[in-house]
């Protein structure tokens, strides 16, 4: 045997084990595999690297990424990560455990999931939340499927065209294969009131792809009159200040937990969340943690309502989800514990003020017009460029900025979080002012 840090077997150990089994070699344990399927040649992979070599390999790659100051959103936001979070989430008791099947030695995981469920209910105003989904877009897709499941035999879901592009794309994918009639429209109220007899649900963004905080007054009752459920896609960080799904009268809320302190990380791992009114509790997909007690009356937590799930109900389960994003739910739970109501409000306040400052300064350059004048926004906004978009984007990249994200409608969006300083904002504006576009 060579030496490899993760294989503890000595020659002698292997001999002992083979003897106990009654075979002469490890190859003999594969005698039931047709011999043509045994891969005898060498794998075309690099030679084993030492720890230092692995580190150097990645550092070299990382240096090939260009470090940019982020003024873009589009579903991923550059918020601050308190240093407490990676410290806690890297504790091996959290990191190297799996789904809490053995609750007696998993109370740590079960308790933080219970806290996460509570916090998601606090933010959304809804009654129950699950233990997490993969990300925001897949949570939206699960909500779409849940609308169909809750309304029995109804099969049309109307989705707002103003949802983030990656949310719409994921909805389209899931609808295509599960046979849901997905209707996309810019005018939700009209599409709903025009009427379809099999309306299962409506999916709208709390804050849309242009950064506008939408006004959903009266929408829930309209959707309910037509027999459907209302799903709000939201930014959980923003829910500290914008109207909640419960306040709009929604049945289900979904979104991405990334804004709760998860680094951009090229798009993942993030975490989806999902909450609903209690009447739909039994149709929620995924794991759910509940409180109970042991024989001695100690408060205890368990995975519950499992009869909904794939390992019990197989093809009749509410979803196929098994592994979720538990550690990222812990990440967000710690984030909210660190920030508290005042910290989260301040994140939004700083982002709001920075974004409005940038918005006004960009308009003053004369290189943009405002297609959504007077509409409320928080940290992200869209402008109509009066110049060449590709040149604008390149000019920003050349100076180390990532902003002016193009939309399908021909606008560009900018985003300012609490991490952007006034100096950075001014430098971005100056770059645009000076660029020949």
């Amino acid at each position, binding site marked *: 045997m060579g030496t490899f840090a993760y294989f503890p077997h000595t020659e002698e150990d292997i001999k002992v084990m083979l003897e106990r089994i009654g075979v002469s070699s490890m190859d003999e344990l594969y005698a039931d595999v047709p011999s043509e399927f045994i891969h005898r040649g060498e794998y075309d992979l690099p030679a084993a690297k030492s720890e230092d070599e692995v580190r150097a390999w990645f550092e070299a790659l990382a240096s090939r990424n260009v470090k940019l100051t982020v003024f873009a959103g589009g579903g991923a936001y550059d918020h601050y990560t308190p240093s407490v979070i990676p410290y806690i989430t890297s504790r091996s008791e959290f990191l190297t455990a799996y789904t809490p099947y053995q609750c007696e030695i998993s109370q740590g995981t079960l308790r933080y999931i219970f806290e996460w469920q509570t916090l998601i209910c606090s933010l959304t105003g809804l009654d129950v939340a699950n233990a997490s989904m993969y990300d925001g877009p897949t949570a939206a897709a699960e909500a779409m499927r849940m609308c169909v499941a809750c309304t029995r035999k109804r099969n049309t879901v109307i989705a707002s065209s103003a949802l983030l592009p990656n949310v719409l794309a994921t909805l389209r994918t899931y609808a295509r294969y599960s046979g849901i009639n997905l209707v996309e429209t810019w005018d939700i109220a009209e599409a709903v009131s025009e009427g379809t007899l099999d309306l299962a649900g409506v999916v709208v963004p709390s804050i849309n792809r242009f950064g506008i905080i939408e006004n959903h007054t009266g929408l829930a009752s309209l959707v309910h009159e037509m027999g459907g459920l209302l799903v709000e896609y939201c930014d959980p960080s923003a829910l500290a200040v914008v109207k909640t799904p419960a306040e709009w009268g929604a049945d289900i809320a979904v979104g991405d937990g990334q804004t709760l302190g998860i680094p951009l990380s090229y798009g993942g791992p993030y975490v989806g969340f999902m909450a609903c009114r209690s009447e739909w509790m039994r149709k929620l997909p995924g794991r759910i943690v509940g409180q109970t007690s042991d024989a001695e009356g100690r408060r205890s937590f368990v995975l519950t*309502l499992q009869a909904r799930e794939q390992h*019990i109900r197989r093809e009749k389960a509410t979803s196929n989800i098994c592994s979720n994003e538990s550690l990222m739910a812990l990440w967000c739970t710690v984030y909210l514990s660190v920030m508290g109501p005042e910290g989260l409000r301040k994140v939004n306040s700083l982002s709001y003020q920075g974004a409005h400052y940038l918005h006004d300064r960009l308009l003053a350059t004369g290189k943009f017009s405002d297609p959504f004048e007077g509409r409320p926004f928080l940290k992200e906004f869209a402008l109509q460029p009066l110049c060449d978009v590709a040149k604008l984007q390149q000019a920003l990249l050349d100076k180390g900025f990532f902003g002016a994200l193009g939309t399908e409608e021909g606008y560009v969006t900018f985003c300012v979080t609490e991490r952007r300083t006034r100096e950075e904002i001014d430098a971005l504006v100056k770059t645009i002012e000076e660029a020949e576009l």
Partner: protein
Amino acid sequence: MSRIIEGLLYSESHEWVKVEGDLAIIGVSDFAQAEMGDITYVDLPSEGDEVQAGEEFGALESVKASSELYSPVSGTVEAVNDELESAPEKVNEDAYGAWIIKVKMSDTSELDSLMNAAAYSEIAG
């Protein structure tokens, strides 16, 4: 040994039927509730739903299992036992007292294919 009551009809999927005119009162047998263990939830249909003989109309759930309920007859759901929503344990306590739905039958001849107590005791002894 599970209880089987004379005078009821039984399906192979362990539902019992009590016939009152064209009304079928449906529950699950004592055998079925014992197999499930502690029932934690009864998934009920709505009044007015149409059911078909042999098709699913709801489900029983326990902590680690789920079991679909199949209607022994076709017809319209006239009543559902709402009490089971908050007290599913009633099915465990008295399987023959805890009816689940009442169906106004569209074809009473479907009853002919069900078992009487003696026949059912062969499969659910």
